[in-house]
């Protein structure tokens, strides 16, 4: 697996309660230094920065808090490599152009990574202050585990990749 194979982007703001779930996941993965995996936090009011952030990566995972009519802590996995013809998810962003527009714009311009997965975690509180709701933190841990499995799966198709399971354990 080349150095720039897998990118994990935690979208959100740590100072807005459950909106910090994306950064929480990205930071845990960055701290564990999974080989071949780059983890970053997008805490900006400008998600169009993603155009630069994901350039050169083949596999991109976005982790973000979402509002959806499901129980808090529900993990929604969406394969964004294909256009999804379902109701649009409402993210917690008040950004000028939102994450969804950036993804669809990238698709229109042919600048979408070849594989783009969104893990949306149904969240509850976006009040000022740090800390995740217990259900959201539990879901965040599950997402880290799922990402680990996904990275290992990618490694099977890229034999030069070697990732130690112990590394994952350090993050838990």
């Amino acid at each position: 697996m080349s150095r720039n194979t897998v990118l994990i982007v935690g979208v959100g703001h740590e100072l807005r309660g459950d909106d910090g779930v994306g950064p929480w996941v990205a930071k845990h993965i960055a701290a564990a230094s999974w080989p071949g995996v780059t983890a970053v936090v997008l805490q900006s009011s400008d998600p169009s920065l993603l155009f630069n952030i994901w350039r050169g990566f083949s596999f991109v995972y976005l982790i973000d808090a979402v509002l959806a009519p499901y129980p808090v802590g529900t993990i929604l996995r969406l394969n964004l490599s294909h256009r999804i013809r379902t109701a649009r998810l409402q993210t917690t962003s008040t950004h000028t152009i939102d994450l969804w527009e950036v993804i669809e714009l990238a698709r229109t311009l042919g600048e979408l990574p070849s594989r783009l997965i969104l893990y949306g975690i149904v969240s509850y509180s976006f009040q000022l202050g740090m800390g995740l709701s217990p259900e959201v933190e539990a879901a965040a841990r599950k997402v880290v585990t799922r990402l680990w499995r996904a990275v290992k799966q990618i490694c099977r198709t890229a034999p030069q990749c070697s990732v130690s399971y112990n590394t994952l354990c350090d993050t838990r």
Partner: protein
Amino acid sequence: MVSHERQRTIRISALARVEGEGALFIQVRDGKPMDVRLQIYEPPRFFEALLRGRPHTDAPDITARICGICPVAYQMSACNALESLFGITIPPEIRQLRLLLYYAEWIQSHTLHVVMLHAPDFLGVDNVVQMAQTNRDLVQRALQLKNVGNQLLALIGGREIHPVNVRVGGFYSVPRPAELRKLRDPLQRGLETALALARWVARFPFPDFEPTYEFVALRHPTEYAILDGHVVSSYGVDLPVSRFEELVVEHQVPHSTALHYEIAGRGSYLTGPLARFNLNFSQLSPLAQEVAHETGHVPPLQNPFRSIVVRCLEIIHALEQSLALIERYEPPARPWVDYEVRSGIGFGASEAPRGLLYHRYEVGADGSIRDARIVPPTAQNQKRIEDDLRLLAPSVIRLSKDRATRFCEHVIRNYDPCISCATHFLRLDIVDEHS
């Protein structure tokens, strides 16, 4: 919307493609606007109170956090205020680097607004995604242009959003000439894109609407004011920044968490690109002026819908100036100048992408901030936006709900409001009462 009844109501839940959360209420009786309220309900963030008691050195970094789109404006106005209080003279090399940083912010902010947010209004499409389906090349080039602004911001400011390299007296560190010169080619390509953008938007269909504005902006003796200057208006005002508060009157209104501003005795006024353009046109870069004449956009330009063209001209200006600054850039001997803290009150202003941004700080002998006052451009324009919507209301109520919503949002986007700065989506209620 229910028509043919005594009372007509339009409710729209959210204003899209503006920075922040707000709502619009319009009440019309017998075709006459009775009440127009731009309701900003984003909670106030108390930045001014947050600054009290903190070291003055925190002001550039804390106030930068007010806005993710124009943090440099906050840093520059804060530095101007404090540096004027402490009697600091900024060496030309540092001043030029600050100009370059500020141009970078104008490039990325204006490009974001012109292409991602405002242009879809003129083309009758919902958003930039739909626009990109028929204008793919231009949108792609615009994203690259915006990226050049971001790169310049990151190089000088330390990072793209909320730069961390600005301090009272200068910078913490400065780039090497070779680092800046790497950006010459992308900036040159950006200039070609900006020219194409200006010629493209100048052909948009613009509604006939030319209210009489009092324009307010900074003016600088030798340059198109951005970093500093004195306060001028189209009604003959010419004041040092320290007297800005004598010019304007602030009001609290029940429907907004942002203060309203008026010119004492005259009413609402307009700050921002259209004001700068009309007041300081002769100081725009040669190429920007040439394109302005070529496209028929020269002062007096009163139509707020044409502000999209002016933003493009300002992008051209910023790119031309940036290229010139990089060409002659010599790093300063030291990134900052030392200074002595003195107690008193300092006043500063600069031209944020959205208009004049004023700061005032009272500092104690120990260097801590005793009091702070920040007047962002969107708060200043809020009353003017309501006045323009009032003028347009009779036309708006004749439209269908969908078209009324689109039109009102379009009007509001003419001013590129940053509601987060002013205190941020829009809900629109129109009530039409027939007596």
